[in-house]
């Protein structure tokens, strides 16, 4: 598997464990060869461009769809076969936070109450009050940010152990985005809550998340704690080098050349580089973009670019 690292969460069962997981729609694979573990108690970011497979992975995890290949286990259970046992423990907010537009806020909460045995009505009402939303107002009349918050309240009020959010802040303005993330993070501070949130916006990730999964073109590119990502990736710059020499440098994620200079973004992992290279730290956004550009460049040149211990990037 390319660039994967499996992280165990303190010996307890992982929140999500995928094994060779794949999903195909017609001829096209939306997700394939996905093998990973997401630890309990962390906030994991699922990052990648649109169509990378983020929504597919989340939908497989919550049982909205079934795998074409492989399997996925959530909290040790099968999302489809053990739905009855699992659903009360998992909160899910789908893309565009679907809600019943014709219902009032109060009626929406009532829906949650009626079909969730573990519903905490005091919590739900408290949240709505904190948000300052009038209970009698029709959901269709709320702003995008308010609707997202209502959808989040619905998911949180059943007191789940795991919260899955599919692009929750994609269509929100910056203030609404911040408030939404605040709510999610406060919930993690209050209870033992695992969060997996998918996003194609990279900016907030470093502060909000402690674990990272990069998906691109239906495959996982990287699975790792964010601290480790930052500690293990470096930018090497040096005088223009010819490709043969680069072949000796392991785990190059991205390379670029100017007339005089070569830059390599590498996964360092304690390797020593000769003195012709200068090392720089790289921020998370750069690293993620490098991984995302990684596959595309490979596709364009026709060469495979899988970074594993032995493989090497050819330009």
């Amino acid at each position, binding site marked *: 598997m390319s660039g994967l690292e499996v992280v165990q969460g303190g010996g307890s069962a992982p929140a999500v464990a995928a094994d060779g997981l794949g999903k195909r729609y017609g001829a096209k694979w939306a997700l394939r060869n996905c093998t990973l573990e997401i630890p309990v108690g962390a906030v994991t970011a699922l990052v990648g461009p649109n169509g990378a497979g983020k929504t597919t992975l989340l939908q497989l995890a919550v049982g909205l769809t079934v795998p074409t290949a492989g399997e996925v286990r959530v909290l040790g259970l099968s999302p489809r076969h053990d739905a009855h046992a699992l659903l009360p423990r998992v909160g899910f907010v789908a893309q565009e936070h679907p809600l019943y537009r014709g219902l009032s806020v109060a009626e929406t909460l009532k829906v949650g109450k009626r079909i969730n045995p573990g519903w905490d009505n005091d919590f739900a009402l408290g949240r709505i009050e904190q948000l300052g939303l009038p209970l009698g107002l029709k959901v269709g009349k709320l702003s995008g940010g308010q609707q997202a918050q209502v*959808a989040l309240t619905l998911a949180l009020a059943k007191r789940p152990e795991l919260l899955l959010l599919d692009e929750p802040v994609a269509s929100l303005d910056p203030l609404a985005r911040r408030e939404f993330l605040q709510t999610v993070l406060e919930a993690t501070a209050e209870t033992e809550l695992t969060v997996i949130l998918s996003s194609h916006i990279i900016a907030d990730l470093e502060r909000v998340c402690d674990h990272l999964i990069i998906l691109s073109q239906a495959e996982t590119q990287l699975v790792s704690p964010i601290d480790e990502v930052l500690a293990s990736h470096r930018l090497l710059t040096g005088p223009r080098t010819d490709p043969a020499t680069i072949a000796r440098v392991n785990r190059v994620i991205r390379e670029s050349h100017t007339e005089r200079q070569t830059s390599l973004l590498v996964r360092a992992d304690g390797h020593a580089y000769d003195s012709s290279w200068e090392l720089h730290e790289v921020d998370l956004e750069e690293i993620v973009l490098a991984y995302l550009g990684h596959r595309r460049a490979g596709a364009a040149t026709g060469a495979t670019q899988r970074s594993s211990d032995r493989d090497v990037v050819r330009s």
Partner: protein
Amino acid sequence: MTWVAWRLQRTETLIALALLVLIGAVLLPTGIEMSHAFDRDHLSLCLGHRPSGACNNAIEGFLSRFNSLGDLLAWFTLLPGLLGVILAAPFLLELEQGTYRLAWTQSITRGRWIAAKLGLPLAVALLVAGAYILVGTWWREPFVRMNGRMDTATYDSEGIVALGYTLFAFGLALVVGVLWRKAVAAVTVAFVGYVVARVFVDTWLRDRLVTPLKLSWNPAAGQPAALDHARILSEGGKILLGGGRLIRQGGRSRSPVTPAAR
């Protein structure tokens, strides 16, 4: 979940009930009037006998008064179709708006959800259709006693036939809506499809379901008893000298007493 399903189909249920009230408002007064007219003129006594002058006039009078109403109300046989597609709408809206993704990730299983989201509207549709059938059957009673049940409008609005239509329309709306995820458009297309299917069955398919019976008779002898409650596909024939008159052909069966020309 039951409350949830009810609340989400509230509008459509109200529409169905409104339609029923409308039907009732039209059928009840006129039905009572017809029933009185039938009894008052003792038309039941005229049935099945050789025509007499008084009976001829009475029936003639009754028909001229209420036949056009009967024609108009023949359109009501589209009601079951309307009920079926309208009550499929809540389910289709879930697909269109993606709210099924919300519903399926609460704590109930998909099966339970589908059972409630399909079962409840279908039950309402069938109940309202059933009420319509009862009222309609009562209303048509005089006609049925005169013309039999094989008349298209009668056949379509009595017994379990209308329930079948409701089911068909409901199912058709579901199929269209699943393929084309726009609820309003799907409901419209399904209703049009329903009408087309009905027209096809009524005007073409039915006539070919069974080999028709062919009869010839001397007009002077009067129509054979076998034709009493028959659906007549076509008529024609030679006019014998000194005989009766040509009977106009059409889908409506005629009174067995008077071979009246229109």
